[in-house]
Protein backbone atom coordinates (compact mmCIF):
# COMPACT_ATOMS: atom_id res chain seq x y z
CA UNK A 1 0.00 0.00 0.00
CA UNK A 2 1.18 3.46 -0.75
CA UNK A 3 2.14 5.57 2.18
CA UNK A 4 0.87 8.72 0.59
CA UNK A 5 -2.77 9.29 1.55
CA UNK A 6 -3.22 11.55 -1.46
CA UNK A 7 -3.06 8.54 -3.73
CA UNK A 8 -5.97 6.77 -2.06
CA UNK A 9 -9.08 8.88 -2.33
CA UNK A 10 -12.09 7.50 -0.49
CA UNK A 11 -13.79 5.47 -3.24
CA UNK A 12 -10.58 3.60 -4.10
CA UNK A 13 -9.57 2.73 -0.59
CA UNK A 14 -12.08 -0.13 -0.67
CA UNK A 15 -9.91 -3.18 0.07
CA UNK A 16 -12.15 -5.46 -1.98
CA UNK A 17 -11.19 -3.66 -5.16
CA UNK A 18 -8.10 -4.85 -7.00
CA UNK A 19 -8.05 -2.58 -10.03
CA UNK A 20 -9.96 0.59 -10.76
CA UNK A 21 -9.68 2.41 -14.06
CA UNK A 22 -11.67 5.58 -14.64
CA UNK A 23 -11.87 7.81 -17.68
CA UNK A 24 -8.62 6.25 -18.83
CA UNK A 25 -7.37 7.43 -22.22
CA UNK A 26 -4.31 6.61 -24.23
CA UNK A 27 -2.91 7.89 -27.50
CA UNK A 28 -0.13 6.62 -29.74
CA UNK A 29 0.81 9.96 -31.27
CA UNK A 30 -2.41 11.14 -32.87
CA UNK A 31 -4.00 7.70 -32.73
CA UNK A 32 -6.52 7.39 -29.92
CA UNK A 33 -6.01 3.78 -28.74
CA UNK A 34 -8.06 3.74 -25.55
CA UNK A 35 -11.13 5.91 -25.01
CA UNK A 36 -12.63 6.59 -21.61
CA UNK A 37 -12.04 3.17 -20.14
CA UNK A 38 -14.02 2.63 -16.93
CA UNK A 39 -13.44 -0.73 -15.36
CA UNK A 40 -13.44 -1.99 -11.80
CA UNK A 41 -12.09 -5.41 -10.90
CA UNK A 42 -12.81 -6.84 -7.47
CA UNK A 43 -10.38 -9.12 -5.66
CA UNK A 44 -10.70 -12.72 -6.74
CA UNK A 45 -12.61 -11.74 -9.84
CA UNK A 46 -11.78 -13.39 -13.18
CA UNK A 47 -12.18 -11.23 -16.22
CA UNK A 48 -11.94 -12.29 -19.83
CA UNK A 49 -11.34 -9.45 -22.25
CA UNK A 50 -12.10 -10.09 -25.89
CA UNK A 51 -12.57 -8.13 -29.05
CA UNK A 52 -11.32 -7.85 -32.61
CA UNK A 53 -7.61 -7.34 -33.17
CA UNK A 54 -6.57 -3.72 -32.80
CA UNK A 55 -9.37 -3.03 -30.35
CA UNK A 56 -6.90 -2.03 -27.62
CA UNK A 57 -7.42 -4.96 -25.26
CA UNK A 58 -3.71 -5.80 -24.95
CA UNK A 59 -2.83 -2.14 -24.59
CA UNK A 60 -5.39 -1.82 -21.81
CA UNK A 61 -4.00 -4.61 -19.68
CA UNK A 62 -0.44 -3.44 -20.38
CA UNK A 63 -1.45 -0.11 -18.82
CA UNK A 64 -2.24 -1.89 -15.57
CA UNK A 65 1.43 -2.64 -14.85
CA UNK A 66 2.63 0.42 -16.71
CA UNK A 67 4.22 -1.38 -19.63
CA UNK A 68 2.24 1.30 -21.44
CA UNK A 69 1.65 4.78 -20.13
CA UNK A 70 -1.85 6.26 -20.12
CA UNK A 71 -2.27 9.96 -20.77
CA UNK A 72 -5.55 10.82 -19.13
CA UNK A 73 -7.75 9.43 -16.39
CA UNK A 74 -6.59 7.25 -13.56
CA UNK A 75 -5.60 3.71 -12.81
CA UNK A 76 -5.47 2.50 -9.23
CA UNK A 77 -3.99 -0.92 -8.65
CA UNK A 78 -4.18 -2.45 -5.20
CA UNK A 79 -4.85 0.96 -3.70
CA UNK A 80 -1.87 2.60 -5.41
CA UNK A 81 -2.40 5.07 -8.19
CA UNK A 82 -0.15 4.74 -11.23
CA UNK A 83 1.79 7.93 -11.76
CA UNK A 84 5.25 8.71 -13.06
CA UNK A 85 6.67 7.76 -9.66
CA UNK A 86 9.05 4.92 -10.48
CA UNK A 87 8.98 3.56 -6.92
CA UNK A 88 5.22 3.11 -7.06
CA UNK A 89 5.36 1.57 -10.50
CA UNK A 90 7.90 -1.01 -9.33
CA UNK A 91 5.86 -1.63 -6.20
CA UNK A 92 2.82 -2.41 -8.34
CA UNK A 93 4.80 -4.53 -10.79
CA UNK A 94 6.08 -6.72 -7.97
CA UNK A 95 2.50 -7.64 -7.11
CA UNK A 96 1.10 -7.92 -10.61
CA UNK A 97 2.20 -10.92 -12.64
CA UNK A 98 2.01 -10.96 -16.42
CA UNK A 99 2.04 -13.72 -19.01
CA UNK A 100 2.77 -12.78 -22.61
CA UNK A 101 1.73 -14.13 -25.97
CA UNK A 102 5.32 -14.95 -26.87
CA UNK A 103 6.29 -16.22 -23.38
CA UNK A 104 9.29 -13.85 -23.14
CA UNK A 105 11.33 -16.28 -21.10
CA UNK A 106 14.99 -15.34 -20.65
CA UNK A 107 16.73 -17.59 -23.20
CA UNK A 108 20.17 -17.37 -21.60
CA UNK A 109 18.97 -18.73 -18.25
CA UNK A 110 17.80 -22.20 -17.30
CA UNK A 111 14.17 -22.73 -16.38
CA UNK A 112 15.09 -22.69 -12.69
CA UNK A 113 17.12 -19.49 -13.12
CA UNK A 114 14.22 -17.89 -15.00
CA UNK A 115 12.03 -18.59 -11.99
CA UNK A 116 14.48 -17.48 -9.31
CA UNK A 117 15.78 -14.29 -10.97
CA UNK A 118 13.09 -11.92 -9.74
CA UNK A 119 12.63 -13.41 -6.25
CA UNK A 120 16.40 -13.14 -5.68
CA UNK A 121 16.92 -9.67 -7.16
CA UNK A 122 13.60 -8.04 -6.36
CA UNK A 123 12.37 -9.82 -3.24
CA UNK A 124 15.93 -10.35 -1.92
CA UNK A 125 15.14 -13.98 -1.24
CA UNK A 126 18.08 -16.28 -0.39
CA UNK A 127 18.92 -18.51 -3.34
CA UNK A 128 17.99 -21.78 -1.70
CA UNK A 129 14.58 -20.50 -0.63
CA UNK A 130 14.02 -19.08 -4.12
CA UNK A 131 14.89 -22.43 -5.67
CA UNK A 132 12.57 -24.34 -3.36
CA UNK A 133 9.84 -21.85 -4.16
CA UNK A 134 10.54 -22.24 -7.89
CA UNK A 135 10.41 -26.04 -7.72
CA UNK A 136 7.07 -25.79 -5.92
CA UNK A 137 5.59 -23.79 -8.79
CA UNK A 138 7.25 -25.95 -11.45
CA UNK A 139 5.51 -28.91 -9.88
CA UNK A 140 2.26 -26.99 -9.95
CA UNK A 141 2.58 -26.47 -13.69
CA UNK A 142 3.70 -30.11 -13.92
CA UNK A 143 7.19 -29.71 -15.39
CA UNK A 144 9.62 -30.05 -12.47
CA UNK A 145 11.81 -32.37 -14.57
CA UNK A 146 12.65 -29.51 -16.98
CA UNK A 147 14.25 -27.28 -14.32
CA UNK A 148 17.79 -27.62 -15.65
CA UNK A 149 16.93 -27.06 -19.31
CA UNK A 150 16.95 -23.85 -21.32
CA UNK A 151 13.75 -22.30 -22.71
CA UNK A 152 14.82 -23.14 -26.28
CA UNK A 153 14.71 -26.84 -25.42
CA UNK A 154 11.05 -26.77 -24.36
CA UNK A 155 7.84 -26.93 -26.39
CA UNK A 156 5.69 -23.83 -26.66
CA UNK A 157 3.14 -25.15 -24.19
CA UNK A 158 5.85 -25.98 -21.68
CA UNK A 159 7.44 -22.55 -22.14
CA UNK A 160 4.14 -20.83 -21.46
CA UNK A 161 3.63 -22.89 -18.33
CA UNK A 162 7.13 -21.90 -17.21
CA UNK A 163 6.19 -18.27 -17.86
CA UNK A 164 3.12 -18.68 -15.65
CA UNK A 165 5.25 -20.29 -12.94
CA UNK A 166 7.78 -17.47 -13.25
CA UNK A 167 5.08 -14.93 -12.48
CA UNK A 168 3.68 -17.02 -9.63
CA UNK A 169 7.12 -17.16 -7.99
CA UNK A 170 6.69 -13.47 -7.15
CA UNK A 171 3.52 -14.38 -5.29
CA UNK A 172 1.40 -11.86 -7.20
CA UNK A 173 -2.00 -10.58 -6.11
CA UNK A 174 -3.17 -10.06 -9.66
CA UNK A 175 -2.33 -11.98 -12.83
CA UNK A 176 -2.56 -10.47 -16.32
CA UNK A 177 -2.66 -12.76 -19.32
CA UNK A 178 -2.03 -11.23 -22.75
CA UNK A 179 -3.27 -13.77 -25.32
CA UNK A 180 -1.41 -16.59 -23.60
CA UNK A 181 -2.46 -19.28 -26.06
CA UNK A 182 -2.40 -17.38 -29.35
CA UNK A 183 1.16 -18.34 -30.26
CA UNK A 184 0.71 -22.01 -29.40
CA UNK A 185 0.12 -25.03 -31.58
CA UNK A 186 -3.47 -26.26 -31.10
CA UNK A 187 -2.46 -29.39 -29.20
CA UNK A 188 -0.65 -27.29 -26.59
CA UNK A 189 -3.45 -24.84 -25.89
CA UNK A 190 -5.17 -27.29 -23.57
CA UNK A 191 -2.26 -27.77 -21.15
CA UNK A 192 -1.87 -24.00 -20.73
CA UNK A 193 -5.61 -23.45 -20.25
CA UNK A 194 -5.71 -26.19 -17.64
CA UNK A 195 -2.99 -24.41 -15.69
CA UNK A 196 -4.96 -21.18 -15.89
CA UNK A 197 -8.19 -22.87 -14.80
CA UNK A 198 -6.51 -24.33 -11.73
CA UNK A 199 -5.14 -20.88 -10.90
CA UNK A 200 -8.63 -19.43 -11.24
CA UNK A 201 -10.03 -22.09 -8.95
CA UNK A 202 -7.65 -20.94 -6.24
CA UNK A 203 -9.18 -17.49 -6.28
CA UNK A 204 -6.46 -15.54 -8.08
CA UNK A 205 -7.56 -12.18 -9.46
CA UNK A 206 -7.15 -12.67 -13.21
CA UNK A 207 -7.48 -10.49 -16.27
CA UNK A 208 -7.18 -12.48 -19.41
CA UNK A 209 -7.11 -11.27 -22.99
CA UNK A 210 -8.03 -14.32 -25.01
CA UNK A 211 -10.12 -15.69 -27.84
CA UNK A 212 -10.66 -18.97 -26.00
CA UNK A 213 -14.39 -18.70 -25.49
CA UNK A 214 -14.53 -22.12 -23.84
CA UNK A 215 -12.21 -20.79 -21.15
CA UNK A 216 -14.37 -17.68 -20.80
CA UNK A 217 -17.50 -19.81 -20.30
CA UNK A 218 -15.78 -22.07 -17.81
CA UNK A 219 -14.03 -19.64 -15.49
CA UNK A 220 -14.89 -16.01 -16.19
CA UNK A 221 -17.01 -14.02 -13.77
CA UNK A 222 -17.33 -11.33 -16.37
CA UNK A 223 -16.57 -11.00 -20.05
CA UNK A 224 -15.53 -7.60 -21.33
CA UNK A 225 -15.93 -6.86 -25.02
CA UNK A 226 -13.82 -4.11 -26.54
CA UNK A 227 -13.83 -2.50 -29.97
CA UNK A 228 -12.05 0.59 -31.29
CA UNK A 229 -10.48 1.32 -27.92
CA UNK A 230 -13.75 1.31 -26.03
CA UNK A 231 -15.46 -1.10 -23.71
CA UNK A 232 -18.65 -1.92 -25.59
CA UNK A 233 -20.21 -4.35 -23.21
CA UNK A 234 -19.48 -6.32 -20.06
CA UNK A 235 -21.56 -9.17 -18.76
CA UNK A 236 -21.54 -12.56 -17.07
CA UNK A 237 -20.49 -15.18 -19.66
CA UNK A 238 -23.96 -16.84 -19.73
CA UNK A 239 -25.55 -13.52 -20.51
CA UNK A 240 -22.72 -12.46 -22.81
CA UNK A 241 -22.88 -15.50 -25.06
CA UNK A 242 -26.68 -16.01 -25.00
CA UNK A 243 -27.95 -12.46 -25.44
CA UNK A 244 -25.26 -10.01 -26.36
CA UNK A 245 -26.81 -6.57 -26.16
CA UNK A 246 -24.72 -4.85 -28.74
CA UNK A 247 -24.66 -5.39 -32.51
CA UNK A 248 -20.87 -5.29 -32.62
CA UNK A 249 -20.68 -7.97 -29.95
CA UNK A 250 -23.07 -10.14 -31.90
CA UNK A 251 -21.04 -9.69 -35.08
CA UNK A 252 -17.82 -10.55 -33.26
CA UNK A 253 -19.29 -13.64 -31.62
CA UNK A 254 -20.66 -14.81 -34.94
CA UNK A 255 -17.24 -14.47 -36.49
CA UNK A 256 -15.32 -16.37 -33.86
CA UNK A 257 -17.86 -19.00 -32.93
CA UNK A 258 -18.80 -20.07 -36.44
Amino acid at each position, binding site marked *: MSASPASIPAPFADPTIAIEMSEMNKWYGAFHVLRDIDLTVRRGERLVICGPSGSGKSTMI*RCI*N*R*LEEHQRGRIVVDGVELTNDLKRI*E*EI*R*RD*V*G*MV*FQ*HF*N*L*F*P*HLTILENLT*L*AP*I*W*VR*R*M*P*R*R*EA*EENAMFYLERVRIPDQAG*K*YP*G*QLSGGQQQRV*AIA*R*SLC*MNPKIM*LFDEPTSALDPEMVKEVLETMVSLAEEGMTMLCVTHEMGFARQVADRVVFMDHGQIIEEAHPDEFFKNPRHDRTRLFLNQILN
Partner: protein
Amino acid sequence: MLSDVKTRSILIQIVLVAAVAAFAVLLVHTTFANLRARGIPVGFDFLAMPSRIVISEAILTYKSRDPYYWAIAVGLANTIFLSTLVIVFSSILGLIVGIARLSSNPLASGTCRVWVELARNSPPIVLLIFLYSLWWKVLPPVGEALNPLPGVYASMRGFVVPDVSVNLSTAGLLTAIALLVLGMSSLLVLRNMISRLALAPAGLFLVVVALWVADIRFDVEWPTFTGSNFSGGNELTPELSTILIGLTIYTTGFIAEIVRGGILSVGRGQWDAGHSLGLSRGKILRLVVIPQMLRVILPPLNSQYINVVKNSTLAIAVGYPDFLAVMNTIISKSSHSIEGVFIILGVYLLLNLTLSSAANWYNRRISIVER
Protein backbone atom coordinates in the same frame (compact mmCIF):
# COMPACT_ATOMS: atom_id res chain seq x y z
CA MET B 1 35.16 -41.60 -64.62
CA LEU B 2 35.91 -37.99 -65.44
CA SER B 3 32.20 -37.23 -65.59
CA ASP B 4 31.77 -38.13 -61.93
CA VAL B 5 31.10 -34.91 -59.99
CA LYS B 6 33.20 -35.84 -56.95
CA THR B 7 36.21 -37.13 -58.86
CA ARG B 8 36.15 -34.14 -61.11
CA SER B 9 36.07 -31.60 -58.28
CA ILE B 10 38.94 -33.38 -56.49
CA LEU B 11 41.00 -33.43 -59.69
CA ILE B 12 40.42 -29.73 -60.32
CA GLN B 13 41.51 -28.92 -56.80
CA ILE B 14 44.67 -31.00 -57.06
CA VAL B 15 45.63 -29.21 -60.29
CA LEU B 16 44.95 -25.78 -58.75
CA VAL B 17 46.93 -26.44 -55.58
CA ALA B 18 49.85 -27.79 -57.62
CA ALA B 19 49.85 -24.69 -59.81
CA VAL B 20 49.83 -22.31 -56.85
CA ALA B 21 52.59 -24.26 -55.09
CA ALA B 22 54.74 -24.27 -58.22
CA PHE B 23 54.30 -20.51 -58.60
CA ALA B 24 55.30 -19.96 -54.94
CA VAL B 25 58.43 -22.12 -55.32
CA LEU B 26 59.37 -20.23 -58.46
CA LEU B 27 58.96 -16.87 -56.65
CA VAL B 28 61.02 -17.90 -53.64
CA HIS B 29 63.71 -19.49 -55.76
CA THR B 30 64.07 -16.46 -58.06
CA THR B 31 64.14 -14.05 -55.12
CA PHE B 32 66.82 -15.96 -53.26
CA ALA B 33 68.89 -16.42 -56.43
CA ASN B 34 68.71 -12.69 -57.17
CA LEU B 35 69.59 -11.73 -53.58
CA ARG B 36 72.61 -14.05 -53.61
CA ALA B 37 73.70 -12.71 -57.00
CA ARG B 38 73.80 -9.21 -55.46
CA GLY B 39 75.70 -10.46 -52.44
CA ILE B 40 72.85 -9.77 -49.97
CA PRO B 41 72.85 -12.35 -47.18
CA VAL B 42 69.71 -14.41 -46.71
CA GLY B 43 68.56 -16.24 -43.57
CA PHE B 44 67.62 -15.70 -39.97
CA ASP B 45 71.17 -15.95 -38.54
CA PHE B 46 71.31 -12.19 -38.00
CA LEU B 47 68.74 -12.43 -35.18
CA ALA B 48 71.38 -13.49 -32.67
CA MET B 49 73.70 -10.60 -33.49
CA PRO B 50 73.80 -7.42 -31.41
CA SER B 51 71.29 -4.99 -32.85
CA ARG B 52 72.82 -1.63 -31.83
CA ILE B 53 69.51 0.07 -32.51
CA VAL B 54 67.84 2.56 -30.19
CA ILE B 55 64.36 1.95 -28.78
CA SER B 56 63.15 5.14 -27.15
CA GLU B 57 60.90 3.49 -24.58
CA ALA B 58 60.08 -0.06 -23.67
CA ILE B 59 58.22 -1.91 -20.99
CA LEU B 60 60.86 -4.64 -21.07
CA THR B 61 64.47 -3.73 -20.31
CA TYR B 62 66.49 -3.13 -23.39
CA LYS B 63 70.05 -2.08 -24.11
CA SER B 64 71.38 -1.40 -27.57
CA ARG B 65 73.94 -4.20 -27.36
CA ASP B 66 71.11 -6.73 -26.98
CA PRO B 67 70.63 -9.04 -29.97
CA TYR B 68 68.05 -8.46 -32.70
CA TYR B 69 65.66 -11.10 -31.41
CA TRP B 70 65.45 -9.26 -28.11
CA ALA B 71 64.79 -5.99 -29.88
CA ILE B 72 61.96 -7.73 -31.73
CA ALA B 73 60.60 -9.08 -28.44
CA VAL B 74 60.78 -5.61 -26.90
CA GLY B 75 58.85 -4.12 -29.82
CA LEU B 76 56.30 -6.93 -29.65
CA ALA B 77 55.88 -6.38 -25.90
CA ASN B 78 55.22 -2.69 -26.55
CA THR B 79 52.58 -3.57 -29.15
CA ILE B 80 50.89 -6.09 -26.86
CA PHE B 81 51.03 -3.66 -23.92
CA LEU B 82 49.54 -0.83 -25.99
CA SER B 83 46.88 -3.02 -27.65
CA THR B 84 45.81 -4.57 -24.37
CA LEU B 85 45.39 -1.19 -22.70
CA VAL B 86 43.43 0.17 -25.67
CA ILE B 87 41.21 -2.93 -25.78
CA VAL B 88 40.46 -2.75 -22.05
CA PHE B 89 39.78 0.99 -21.97
CA SER B 90 37.75 1.12 -25.18
CA SER B 91 35.66 -1.89 -24.13
CA ILE B 92 34.71 -0.24 -20.85
CA LEU B 93 34.13 3.17 -22.43
CA GLY B 94 32.36 1.62 -25.42
CA LEU B 95 29.91 -0.16 -23.14
CA ILE B 96 29.19 3.06 -21.24
CA VAL B 97 28.91 5.24 -24.36
CA GLY B 98 26.81 2.61 -26.16
CA ILE B 99 24.35 2.38 -23.28
CA ALA B 100 24.31 6.16 -22.81
CA ARG B 101 23.44 6.65 -26.49
CA LEU B 102 20.17 4.88 -25.77
CA SER B 103 19.52 7.04 -22.72
CA SER B 104 16.44 9.21 -22.68
CA ASN B 105 18.57 12.06 -21.35
CA PRO B 106 19.29 14.19 -24.45
CA LEU B 107 22.54 15.57 -23.02
CA ALA B 108 23.97 12.10 -22.42
CA SER B 109 22.80 10.61 -25.69
CA GLY B 110 23.81 13.73 -27.64
CA THR B 111 27.34 13.85 -26.23
CA CYS B 112 27.82 10.18 -26.94
CA ARG B 113 26.47 10.60 -30.44
CA VAL B 114 29.02 13.34 -31.14
CA TRP B 115 31.77 11.11 -29.81
CA VAL B 116 30.69 8.19 -31.98
CA GLU B 117 30.33 10.26 -35.13
CA LEU B 118 33.67 12.03 -34.65
CA ALA B 119 35.49 8.79 -33.95
CA ARG B 120 33.89 6.83 -36.76
CA ASN B 121 34.20 9.46 -39.44
CA SER B 122 37.76 10.67 -39.00
CA PRO B 123 40.85 8.79 -40.15
CA PRO B 124 42.65 7.58 -37.02
CA ILE B 125 45.94 9.08 -38.12
CA VAL B 126 44.38 12.56 -38.26
CA LEU B 127 43.12 12.10 -34.72
CA LEU B 128 46.58 11.00 -33.58
CA ILE B 129 48.43 13.87 -35.23
CA PHE B 130 45.87 16.33 -33.88
CA LEU B 131 46.23 14.98 -30.33
CA TYR B 132 50.00 14.89 -30.58
CA SER B 133 50.16 18.50 -31.75
CA LEU B 134 47.89 19.54 -28.89
CA TRP B 135 50.52 18.27 -26.53
CA TRP B 136 52.81 21.24 -27.20
CA LYS B 137 50.06 23.76 -27.81
CA VAL B 138 47.99 23.13 -24.74
CA LEU B 139 50.26 21.75 -22.06
CA PRO B 140 52.80 23.98 -20.30
CA PRO B 141 56.58 23.43 -20.09
CA VAL B 142 57.72 21.08 -17.38
CA GLY B 143 58.51 23.90 -14.95
CA GLU B 144 54.88 25.02 -14.93
CA ALA B 145 53.36 21.54 -15.04
CA LEU B 146 49.64 21.31 -14.43
CA ASN B 147 48.67 19.53 -11.27
CA PRO B 148 45.06 18.42 -11.79
CA LEU B 149 45.11 15.80 -9.03
CA PRO B 150 47.47 15.50 -6.08
CA GLY B 151 50.62 13.79 -7.34
CA VAL B 152 49.54 13.88 -10.99
CA TYR B 153 51.38 16.31 -13.23
CA ALA B 154 50.84 17.05 -16.89
CA SER B 155 53.33 18.92 -19.01
CA MET B 156 54.91 18.89 -22.47
CA ARG B 157 56.98 15.95 -21.29
CA GLY B 158 53.93 13.80 -20.60
CA PHE B 159 52.17 12.67 -17.48
CA VAL B 160 53.79 11.92 -14.17
CA VAL B 161 51.80 9.86 -11.66
CA PRO B 162 52.70 8.59 -8.17
CA ASP B 163 54.44 5.25 -8.02
CA VAL B 164 52.78 2.79 -5.66
CA SER B 165 54.66 -0.15 -4.29
CA VAL B 166 53.27 -2.75 -1.92
CA ASN B 167 55.06 -3.59 1.28
CA LEU B 168 54.13 -6.62 3.34
CA SER B 169 55.51 -9.36 5.53
CA THR B 170 55.23 -13.05 4.61
CA ALA B 171 53.71 -14.01 7.96
CA GLY B 172 51.05 -11.32 7.78
CA LEU B 173 50.26 -12.29 4.20
CA LEU B 174 49.89 -15.98 5.05
CA THR B 175 47.61 -15.25 8.01
CA ALA B 176 45.49 -12.98 5.85
CA ILE B 177 45.21 -15.55 3.05
CA ALA B 178 44.25 -18.26 5.54
CA LEU B 179 41.61 -15.96 7.00
CA LEU B 180 40.26 -15.05 3.59
CA VAL B 181 40.08 -18.67 2.42
CA LEU B 182 38.32 -19.70 5.61
CA GLY B 183 35.86 -16.82 5.54
CA MET B 184 35.11 -17.05 1.84
CA SER B 185 34.54 -20.79 1.93
CA SER B 186 32.13 -20.47 4.82
CA LEU B 187 30.35 -17.71 2.93
CA LEU B 188 30.25 -20.03 -0.09
CA VAL B 189 28.60 -22.71 2.03
CA LEU B 190 26.12 -20.21 3.44
CA ARG B 191 25.59 -18.57 0.05
CA ASN B 192 22.31 -20.30 -0.64
CA MET B 193 20.87 -19.65 2.77
CA ILE B 194 21.36 -15.94 3.21
CA SER B 195 20.07 -13.06 1.16
CA ARG B 196 22.17 -11.52 -1.56
CA LEU B 197 21.77 -8.30 0.36
CA ALA B 198 23.93 -9.61 3.20
CA LEU B 199 26.46 -11.45 1.04
CA ALA B 200 28.33 -8.49 -0.43
CA PRO B 201 28.83 -6.60 2.86
CA ALA B 202 29.99 -9.81 4.54
CA GLY B 203 32.56 -10.37 1.79
CA LEU B 204 33.71 -6.76 1.95
CA PHE B 205 34.08 -6.96 5.72
CA LEU B 206 36.24 -10.08 5.31
CA VAL B 207 38.52 -8.37 2.81
CA VAL B 208 38.94 -5.35 5.08
CA VAL B 209 39.76 -7.54 8.08
CA ALA B 210 42.22 -9.55 5.98
CA LEU B 211 43.93 -6.37 4.76
CA TRP B 212 44.18 -5.15 8.33
CA VAL B 213 45.61 -8.47 9.57
CA ALA B 214 48.07 -8.68 6.68
CA ASP B 215 49.36 -5.25 7.67
CA ILE B 216 49.89 -4.30 4.05
CA ARG B 217 51.49 -0.92 3.61
CA PHE B 218 51.29 0.86 0.33
CA ASP B 219 54.41 2.92 -0.17
CA VAL B 220 53.63 5.81 -2.41
CA GLU B 221 56.46 7.61 -4.06
CA TRP B 222 55.27 11.10 -4.91
CA PRO B 223 56.88 12.77 -7.88
CA THR B 224 58.81 15.91 -6.94
CA PHE B 225 60.02 18.66 -9.16
CA THR B 226 63.78 19.05 -8.90
CA GLY B 227 64.33 22.25 -10.85
CA SER B 228 64.70 20.72 -14.30
CA ASN B 229 62.54 17.62 -14.22
CA PHE B 230 60.48 15.35 -12.03
CA SER B 231 62.10 12.68 -9.98
CA GLY B 232 60.20 9.73 -8.61
CA GLY B 233 56.80 8.57 -9.76
CA ASN B 234 55.88 6.92 -13.01
CA GLU B 235 56.26 8.68 -16.28
CA LEU B 236 53.88 8.37 -19.21
CA THR B 237 55.51 9.85 -22.31
CA PRO B 238 53.55 12.10 -24.69
CA GLU B 239 54.03 9.46 -27.40
CA LEU B 240 52.54 6.57 -25.45
CA SER B 241 49.80 8.81 -24.02
CA THR B 242 48.84 10.08 -27.48
CA ILE B 243 48.60 6.70 -29.15
CA LEU B 244 46.82 5.28 -26.09
CA ILE B 245 44.26 8.09 -25.83
CA GLY B 246 43.86 8.45 -29.61
CA LEU B 247 43.26 4.77 -30.34
CA THR B 248 40.98 4.50 -27.32
CA ILE B 249 38.82 7.42 -28.47
CA TYR B 250 38.74 5.97 -31.98
CA THR B 251 37.94 2.39 -31.03
CA THR B 252 35.40 3.43 -28.40
CA GLY B 253 33.32 5.00 -31.17
CA PHE B 254 33.07 1.69 -32.99
CA ILE B 255 32.52 -0.43 -29.90
CA ALA B 256 29.78 1.94 -28.69
CA GLU B 257 27.91 1.38 -31.95
CA ILE B 258 28.31 -2.37 -31.64
CA VAL B 259 27.03 -2.22 -28.07
CA ARG B 260 24.08 -0.07 -29.10
CA GLY B 261 23.17 -2.49 -31.88
CA GLY B 262 23.56 -5.39 -29.46
CA ILE B 263 21.22 -3.85 -26.92
CA LEU B 264 18.65 -3.09 -29.60
CA SER B 265 18.91 -6.67 -30.86
CA VAL B 266 17.46 -7.95 -27.58
CA GLY B 267 13.72 -7.89 -28.16
CA ARG B 268 11.27 -5.61 -26.39
CA GLY B 269 9.60 -8.66 -24.90
CA GLN B 270 12.61 -9.23 -22.67
CA TRP B 271 12.25 -5.72 -21.23
CA ASP B 272 8.49 -6.27 -20.80
CA ALA B 273 9.11 -9.54 -18.97
CA GLY B 274 11.71 -7.95 -16.72
CA HIS B 275 9.53 -4.94 -15.93
CA SER B 276 6.49 -7.13 -15.27
CA LEU B 277 8.54 -8.98 -12.64
CA GLY B 278 9.39 -5.72 -10.90
CA LEU B 279 13.03 -5.56 -12.01
CA SER B 280 14.46 -2.07 -12.41
CA ARG B 281 15.87 -0.84 -15.73
CA GLY B 282 19.43 -1.23 -14.51
CA LYS B 283 18.86 -4.79 -13.33
CA ILE B 284 17.16 -5.77 -16.58
CA LEU B 285 20.13 -4.33 -18.45
CA ARG B 286 22.63 -6.17 -16.28
CA LEU B 287 20.89 -9.51 -15.77
CA VAL B 288 18.87 -9.95 -18.94
CA VAL B 289 19.96 -7.67 -21.78
CA ILE B 290 23.76 -7.52 -21.49
CA PRO B 291 24.23 -11.30 -21.15
CA GLN B 292 22.18 -11.81 -24.31
CA MET B 293 23.79 -8.87 -26.07
CA LEU B 294 27.29 -10.30 -25.45
CA ARG B 295 26.50 -13.25 -27.67
CA VAL B 296 25.45 -10.98 -30.50
CA ILE B 297 28.28 -8.48 -30.26
CA LEU B 298 31.17 -10.86 -29.74
CA PRO B 299 32.01 -11.47 -33.44
CA PRO B 300 31.99 -7.76 -34.43
CA LEU B 301 33.72 -6.88 -31.16
CA ASN B 302 36.47 -9.31 -32.01
CA SER B 303 36.99 -7.60 -35.37
CA GLN B 304 37.42 -4.36 -33.47
CA TYR B 305 40.02 -5.95 -31.20
CA ILE B 306 41.86 -7.17 -34.28
CA ASN B 307 41.62 -3.64 -35.68
CA VAL B 308 43.19 -2.30 -32.47
CA VAL B 309 46.19 -4.57 -32.95
CA LYS B 310 46.49 -3.48 -36.57
CA ASN B 311 45.90 0.21 -35.79
CA SER B 312 48.58 0.08 -33.09
CA THR B 313 51.04 0.30 -36.01
CA LEU B 314 49.97 3.96 -36.30
CA ALA B 315 52.21 4.46 -33.26
CA ILE B 316 54.90 5.13 -35.85
CA ALA B 317 53.17 8.44 -36.64
CA VAL B 318 53.81 9.79 -33.14
CA GLY B 319 57.11 8.02 -32.60
CA TYR B 320 56.12 5.35 -30.12
CA PRO B 321 58.31 2.29 -30.77
CA ASP B 322 55.72 -0.43 -31.38
CA PHE B 323 56.53 -3.72 -33.05
CA LEU B 324 56.28 -2.37 -36.60
CA ALA B 325 58.44 0.67 -35.82
CA VAL B 326 61.11 -1.53 -34.26
CA MET B 327 60.96 -3.93 -37.20
CA ASN B 328 61.37 -1.04 -39.63
CA THR B 329 64.51 0.07 -37.82
CA ILE B 330 65.79 -3.50 -37.76
CA ILE B 331 65.16 -3.95 -41.47
CA SER B 332 67.00 -0.79 -42.45
CA LYS B 333 69.84 -1.55 -40.06
CA SER B 334 70.29 -5.22 -40.96
CA SER B 335 69.10 -5.14 -44.61
CA HIS B 336 67.30 -8.42 -44.05
CA SER B 337 64.12 -6.97 -45.51
CA ILE B 338 62.48 -10.15 -46.78
CA GLU B 339 62.99 -11.97 -43.49
CA GLY B 340 61.82 -8.89 -41.63
CA VAL B 341 58.61 -8.66 -43.60
CA PHE B 342 57.98 -12.35 -43.00
CA ILE B 343 58.45 -11.84 -39.28
CA ILE B 344 56.07 -8.85 -39.35
CA LEU B 345 53.39 -10.78 -41.25
CA GLY B 346 53.82 -13.86 -39.08
CA VAL B 347 53.61 -11.93 -35.81
CA TYR B 348 50.46 -9.96 -36.72
CA LEU B 349 48.86 -13.12 -38.08
CA LEU B 350 49.69 -14.94 -34.87
CA LEU B 351 48.42 -12.11 -32.65
CA ASN B 352 45.13 -11.84 -34.49
CA LEU B 353 44.57 -15.57 -34.81
CA THR B 354 45.12 -15.82 -31.05
CA LEU B 355 42.51 -13.12 -30.49
CA SER B 356 40.07 -14.82 -32.85
CA SER B 357 40.44 -18.25 -31.32
CA ALA B 358 40.02 -16.82 -27.83
CA ALA B 359 36.84 -15.10 -29.00
CA ASN B 360 35.60 -18.27 -30.70
CA TRP B 361 36.23 -20.30 -27.60
CA TYR B 362 34.31 -17.81 -25.48
CA ASN B 363 31.54 -17.64 -28.06
CA ARG B 364 31.06 -21.40 -27.94
CA ARG B 365 31.07 -21.35 -24.18
CA ILE B 366 28.29 -18.79 -23.85
CA SER B 367 26.16 -19.69 -26.85
CA ILE B 368 22.47 -20.07 -26.12
CA VAL B 369 21.23 -23.63 -25.96
CA GLU B 370 18.63 -24.34 -28.58
CA ARG B 371 16.87 -27.56 -29.25
